[in-house]
């Protein structure tokens, strides 16, 4: 058994009391609540190998966070098995959480009124990190995350991006073999997102830390993950590489060409003109029929071209299509 995470037949069902209107309804609901069962996670199985960086994708309420909570031991499943790093997360909680790192994007694990560095020192004691290793790790992370400017600032005065960097650092000081991230880039600007992605990549490739992250942001997945799992309504819809996903469901690509001079007709076989604006023409073509380079070859043989760009179909649109059209069945 070489996988670091093995999940099989995982279910989590919640009983939610039905709300009733009015004072009388409230009283009745108190006395004899009627329950609705919500299947937040409804039979999920997957494995993750050591060193993988996997994206866990899905719309709001798809069951992403519930899965993550079960993997981190916060929740006990209704049914199914979870083995992470040879342990069952919700048994022997203290031993288990010492071996993982987790950041839940919206919340901080740091002490609100303390300067960042003091929070980190407190964590050193909580995780029993040897002094030398703590020093090394902190030195390394503060450089990578560019934390020097706010190391002495109380957490409450940090910007969201700074706080996320501090939290990432906090989650990794004890050298966990696994890192769970729930929406690590939510609410951040482009620069901050990029920095965090680079850091996650670094931790994954240099330290060999296995990373599982949930996200809304498809560029996270695009730039980071070698594998993606898509979940909707508690079920896995897809598991595999991103190129594979785009190949199967990506639809048409586009080529945008800026011609050097005006041509009366700019048709080319294998592609269709979908937009024309002065010298700029946009073609659409299917990846199964023609490659981008062949198409460019045909065009440049015929016209003088100033500039061009290939536009991949947006992952976002693709994934939305998968949710909406239920293109996939659970594996």
């Amino acid at each position: 058994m070489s996988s670091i995470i093995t999940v099989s037949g995982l279910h989590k069902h919640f009983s939610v009391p039905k709300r009733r209107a009015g004072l009388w309804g409230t009283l009745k609901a108190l006395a004899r609540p009627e329950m609705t069962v919500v299947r937040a996670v409804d039979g999920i199985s997957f494995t993750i190998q050591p060193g993988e960086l996997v994206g866990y994708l899905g719309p709001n309420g798809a069951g992403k966070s519930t899965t993550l909570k079960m993997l981190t031991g916060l929740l006990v499943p209704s049914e199914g098995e979870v083995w992470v790093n040879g342990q069952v997360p919700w048994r022997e909680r203290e031993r288990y959480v010492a071996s993982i790192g987790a950041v839940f994007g919206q919340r901080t694990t740091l002490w609100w009124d303390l300067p960042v560095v003091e929070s980190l020192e407190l964590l050193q004691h909580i995780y029993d990190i040897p002094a030398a290793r703590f020093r090394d790790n902190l030195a390394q992370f503060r450089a990578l995350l560019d934390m020097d400017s706010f190391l002495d600032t109380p957490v409450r005065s940090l910007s969201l991006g700074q706080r996320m960097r501090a939290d990432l650092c906090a989650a990794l000081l004890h050298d966990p073999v696994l890192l769970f991230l729930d929406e690590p880039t939510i609410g951040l600007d482009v620069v901050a997102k990029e920095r965090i992605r680079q850091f996650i990549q670094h931790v994954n490739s240099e330290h060999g830390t296995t990373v599982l992250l949930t996200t809304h942001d498809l560029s996270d997945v695009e730039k980071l993950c070698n594998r993606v799992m898509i979940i909707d309504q508690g079920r896995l819809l897809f598991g595999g590489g991103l190129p594979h996903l785009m190949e199967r469901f990506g639809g048409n690509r586009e080529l945008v060409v800026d011609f050097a001079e005006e041509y009366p007709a700019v048709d080319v076989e294998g592609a269709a003109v979908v937009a024309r604006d002065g010298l700029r023409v946009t073609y659409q073509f299917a990846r199964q029929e023609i490659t981008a380079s062949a198409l460019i070859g045909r065009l440049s043989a015929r016209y003088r071209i100033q500039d061009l760009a290939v536009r991949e179909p947006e992952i976002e649109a693709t994934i939305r299509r998968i949710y909406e059209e239920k293109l996939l069945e659970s594996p």
Partner: protein
Amino acid sequence: MAKHLRLYLRLIGVQLRGQLQYRTAFLMDALATAVLTMVGFGSLAMIFQRFENLGGWSLGEVAFLFGMVEFSFGTMDMLFSGFDPQHFGQQVRRGSLDQLLLRPLPITLQVLGSKFVLRRVGRIVQGALILLLGILASDVGWSVGKLLYLPIVLMSLVSFFGGLFVLGATLTFWTVESVEVTNIFTYGGSEMMSYPMHIYDEWIRRFFTFVIPAIFLNYYPALYFLDKPDPFDLPPSTSFLAPLVGFGTLVLALKVWDVGLRHYQSTGS
């Protein structure tokens, strides 16, 4: 164990430094807390000359009981702030409890270390002063036994009140609306325990004997210290049940707390 104690002290230390950052606010809060206690007892003391006694107890004797309860409740309120149902309920809703569950430390220790309200010192000091006043004014016939038993009773009261807080916090795993009702048992209970229990209607007294065994922690020990006869004719050893009941309540509450935590981990809400 020693490691846990050290960590607890560290966590508390962090709280203290945070609170002392805002010195003016801290002093004002501490003073307000102190004044609140003093005002309650002060009015009773001021009107006492018109009445001479309260259910047969002199002002000094009432002060003894009142001070004992105030001192213990204040101490508990400082140590167990993390379990304060109101505060804890908020933590659960905000997901802060999850953050604690992600750390490799016993959860009880972390909740205890998550909040430490130093300004309760005001109430503790006032309680101690009133207790002292009671001791001076009601001439307790001190014996070795009484000297040894007083700190034990105070610790038992702290544990007992702590147990009530833990139970209240546990209830918030099921319903946040429980908080206000819980307040009746904690704040209301301590207020009630500040006066001799025989002045209450029988049903109230029964409730605080059999359902919430408060009477063994304040009234019976006080009877022993003040050498007063027991109007309910229980055996004299009843006065020495305080540690059993006090620590027992806390232990039992922590067991229920474990059940609540398991419930939380199966519902996540």
